[in-house]
């Protein structure tokens, strides 16, 4: 039984009431989680996401995402030295080469905090791009490189002043950076696949493409993009001390075949890309084994002697340990694709170490004897004895004594334990509770039928029904038996677990909208677009039918009337043209568009897929007017 059940005792009564309310609401309209006893407004879990060791190994720095602070621990006895408040939803941090500064990316207020490690205080806060997620400083201490997830670029900043010099185009959703040991190159990975380069008409049925962006640190220009075929979701990178081996953790979705089974890796492979001189190129190496998966790999570290690679697997709640010489030997002796062979990992995976809920960032001690693992969803740090490959200690971080319904729901969301052989979890496709930028062919609609784009989850409260065909009246239906049958193909949730999950999903807040002006006013172009959005006559003074106005179907505060319409986008493979009206929350971030992901951009919704004006009256608009409409939509 999961450990969470034991922790429930303290708040069991509260959770049970919330669950009863949720469960009772299945057939009686929307769930009102916030009205229940678990309002989730006072939770202040630490949610450790990343860990760092000071150069002398004396301090352990822990990035606590939910409590929005950096905690400084004595690395010998793990006593808390200081808690340093930073910005909203910090996501990444790094030490300056001299260890005198920690730079933290605050992903929700688009800033970075500069912490003086002597004073243990924030000494500067600098504005950066949209949703900064990772940061590294060059060896010379002249420049900072910041990965901006929403603006899809790496900002180059003056390391002393924070002044932005320029931005470099990176992969979509760029989120993780690493610097090569010689300091010559910065490597960047991204969590959403890049848009298809070539227009074929079948963009929504092509394998996802990602990249590792290679930046020359001295010149601050992109010099190379290492292609990652069939990959959507790339996370941390690490390098061996000699710089000859690089490794990146990633997801390999199998979205081009119907999601009809999980056997033999039917939905996902979880893999590493290994590259560098030791490999002689780029090789995708599977982490999974025949009946057990290394779901949602995230953090990676290579031991100082290059004998081991450690990979946190957030969905499998474990750390996978790889014997590097054996892996390299195997790779050299077995050229060709390895990713579909679940037997190969036994040639180099030597241990799988169970840790806490949703393990994420890792840090190795300088001598490689200890591996620190941030278990995000139970507020602990696992200290792994790397000689024994076992958890030697679990550091409990300060935080709420009990566990809330929302936290339980989040644990359910991020674990793969409920699916057959632990292959997938909600977060496999909803990366960081968002989306994956991939279209899928789900079984219930028929093989090859109803190709669907993955919809975003944030702010979905009160936007039911769910599913593109509007077939699921509420979240418990969406996430309950249907998910268990068609996705997990395994153990069913108990009602409490499902209720926890529903509460978590219903309370997912929207990220800040980056297209709105700071003063809340609309720009002139956005204002013109709003007029078009709300108009009821076209440019020829002809009335626009109610059902053909933007503001009718996309009404209400979240931009959905919660009704279904046929907007003329039905494809030959679709069972019906009647589609649920999606909410508009942060629509600028949710490409591709339309129910089947066939529109790669917002523009294509109307320039390509609205020939008969069924998706709103738009064909009377000039190009600049359509641009204005899109500028307004981006503010939603």
């Amino acid at each position: 039984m999961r450990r969470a059940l034991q922790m429930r005792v303290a708040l069991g009564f509260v959770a049970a009431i919330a669950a009863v309310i949720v469960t009772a609401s299945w057939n009686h309209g929307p769930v009102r989680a916030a009205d229940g006893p678990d309002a989730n407004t006072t939770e202040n879990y630490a949610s450790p996401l990343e860990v760092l060791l000071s150069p002398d190994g004396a301090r352990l720095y822990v990035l606590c995402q939910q409590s929005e602070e950096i905690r400084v621990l004595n690395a010998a006895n793990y006593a808390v030295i200081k808690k340093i408040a930073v910005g909203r939803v910090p996501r990444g941090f790094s030490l300056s080469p001299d260890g005198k500064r920690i730079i933290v990316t605050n992903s929700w207020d688009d800033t970075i905090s500069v912490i003086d490690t002597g004073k243990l205080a924030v000494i500067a806060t600098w504005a950066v791009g949209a949703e900064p997620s990772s940061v590294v400083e060059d060896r010379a201490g002249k420049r900072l490189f910041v990965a901006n997830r929403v603006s899809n670029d790496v900002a180059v900043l003056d390391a002393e002043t924070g002044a932005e010099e320029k931005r470099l185009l990176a992969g979509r959703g760029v989120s993780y950076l690493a610097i090569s040991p010689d300091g010559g190159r910065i490597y960047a990975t991204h969590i959403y696949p890049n848009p298809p380069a070539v227009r074929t008409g079948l963009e929504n049925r092509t394998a996802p493409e990602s990249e590792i962006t290679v930046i020359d640190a001295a010149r601050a220009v992109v010099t190379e993009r290492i292609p990652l075929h069939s990959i959507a979701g790339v996370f941390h990178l690490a390098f061996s001390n000699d710089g000859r081996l690089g490794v990146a953790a990633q997801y390999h979705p199998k979205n081009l075949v119907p999601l009809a089974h999980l056997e033999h890796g039917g939905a996902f492979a979880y893999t590493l890309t290994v590259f560098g001189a030791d490999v002689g190129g780029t090789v995708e190496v599977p982490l999974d084994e025949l009946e057990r998966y290394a779901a949602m790999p995230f953090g990676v570290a290579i031991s100082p002697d290059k004998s081991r690679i450690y990979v946190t697997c957030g969905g499998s709640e474990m750390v996978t340990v790889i014997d590097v010489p054996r892996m390299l030997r195997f790779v050299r002796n077995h050229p060709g694709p390895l990713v579909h062979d679940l037997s190969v990992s036994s040639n180099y995976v030597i241990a799988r170490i169970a840790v806490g809920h949703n393990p994420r960032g890792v840090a190795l001690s300088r001598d490689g004897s200890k591996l620190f693992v941030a278990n995000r969803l139970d507020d602990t740090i696992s200290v792994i004895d790397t000689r024994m490959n076992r958890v030697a200690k679990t550091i409990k971080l300060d935080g709420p004594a009990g566990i809330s319904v929302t936290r339980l729901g989040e644990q359910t969301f991020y674990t793969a334990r409920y699916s057959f052989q632990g292959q997938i979890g909600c977060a496999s496709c909803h990366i960081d509770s968002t989306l994956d930028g991939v279209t899928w062919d789900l079984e219930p609609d028929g093989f090859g039928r109803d190709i669907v784009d993955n919809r975003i989850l944030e702010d979905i409260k009160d936007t039911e029904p769910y599913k593109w065909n509007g077939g699921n009246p509420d979240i418990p239906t969406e996430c309950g038996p249907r998910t268990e049958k068609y996705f997990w193909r395994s153990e069913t949730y108990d009602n409490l677990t499902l209720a926890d999950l529903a509460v978590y999903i219903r309370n997912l807040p929207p990220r800040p909208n980056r297209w709105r002006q700071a003063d809340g006013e609309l720009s002139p172009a956005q204002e013109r677009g709003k007029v078009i959005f709300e108009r009821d006559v076209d440019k020829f003074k002809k009335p626009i039918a109610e059902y053909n106005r933007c503001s009718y179907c996309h009404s209400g505060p979240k931009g959905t009337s919660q009704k279904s319409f046929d907007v003329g986008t039905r494809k030959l493979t679709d069972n019906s043209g009647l589609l649920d009206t999606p909410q508009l929350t942060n629509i600028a971030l949710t490409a591709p568009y339309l129910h089947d992901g066939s529109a790669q951009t917002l523009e294509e919704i109307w320039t390509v897929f609205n020939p008969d004006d069924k998706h709103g009256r738009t064909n009377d608009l000039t190009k600049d007017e359509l641009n204005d409409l899109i500028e307004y939509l981006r503010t939603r």
Partner: protein
Amino acid sequence: MKNLTCFTLFVAAIFMAVTATAATPEMPQFRFENFTTANGLPDNHVYSVLVDGDRIWAGTDNGLAVYENHAWKSYTTKDGLAHRAILTLALDKRTGDVWAGTMGGLSRISGGRIDSYTQLNSGLSNDVVYGVAVEGENVWVATAAGGCKLNIRTGQWALYNERNTPMNEIWVYSVSATPSKVYYGVWGSGVLEYDQKTGRWDKYDDPDGENEMVLFKDQGLIHEIVTSVSYVDNILWAATYFGDSRYDGRYWHNFLTKDSGLPSNFTNCVKGVDAQRAWFGTDKGLAFYDGVNWAVYRSSVTDGKPEMTVRDAEGKITPVTVTTAPAHNYVLGIDFQGNDIWVATAKGLSHGIRQ
């Protein structure tokens, strides 16, 4: 007497030689190395050329080619280019990204990855992109349906056309952008000036109107059909199919074949070096103006042999012996690489190596 006559003739010859030498201005001389499909270009019709340090980009009728380490590599629509015909190129010097205007949209080449913007998938006003310029985080675009500005930081597009600028025609051929001023050359609508500080537009027209005769010399733009603009050191150089112009913010100066060293009034492109010097690409050869004198580089229009001529301030034309010429007299694009020059022509790309 005979000796005196000989001496006089000798002195006169020396004087003439000295004065003739002194009167021939020192103009740059080049040895042209030409590239065609025979040595790696994807197509001989080269619309545009861009120098990027040691790399040379060539926009051809059949793809984008880059010359590096003595070898050409080509990109096509299969690599993601918006169209095979690459009309214009611009370099973002900060990031190293190359922007290519094509007959089917605007493409960004960044670290080997190509992203394309079209009128269907983006806010680009039209797929036929004649001009592109990078200024800070803005990419300014000249299209067959107006001008555009893409802010690469925000992804926002601004469109400029007859509805929000004094643009009579929307066939925009060229753009030159700096942090202070942006100039659009419009086919049939003169030159548009955008003041980045005030956000105001201004318009420069031919004072003769649509009259092909030049009634008002040096009193304005030489003609409404503007093919190319280049704004350097606060000086606007403008090329048209009927002569060229220089504007210093107050005074105009017009250049015509009849009173300058231009080999032809039909000018495809102009590229200013600084406030005084500029290069012109015409249908009858490549021309250089140093503020006083002119030099023309081409194959002779009579016998096809390489020729270079220099025209001084008095209009005296002096031939210079050369053995090479640009690949073709129909010049479409120009860029500089130190003292060297690269020239895009209708039948090949030329590297002018300074002698």
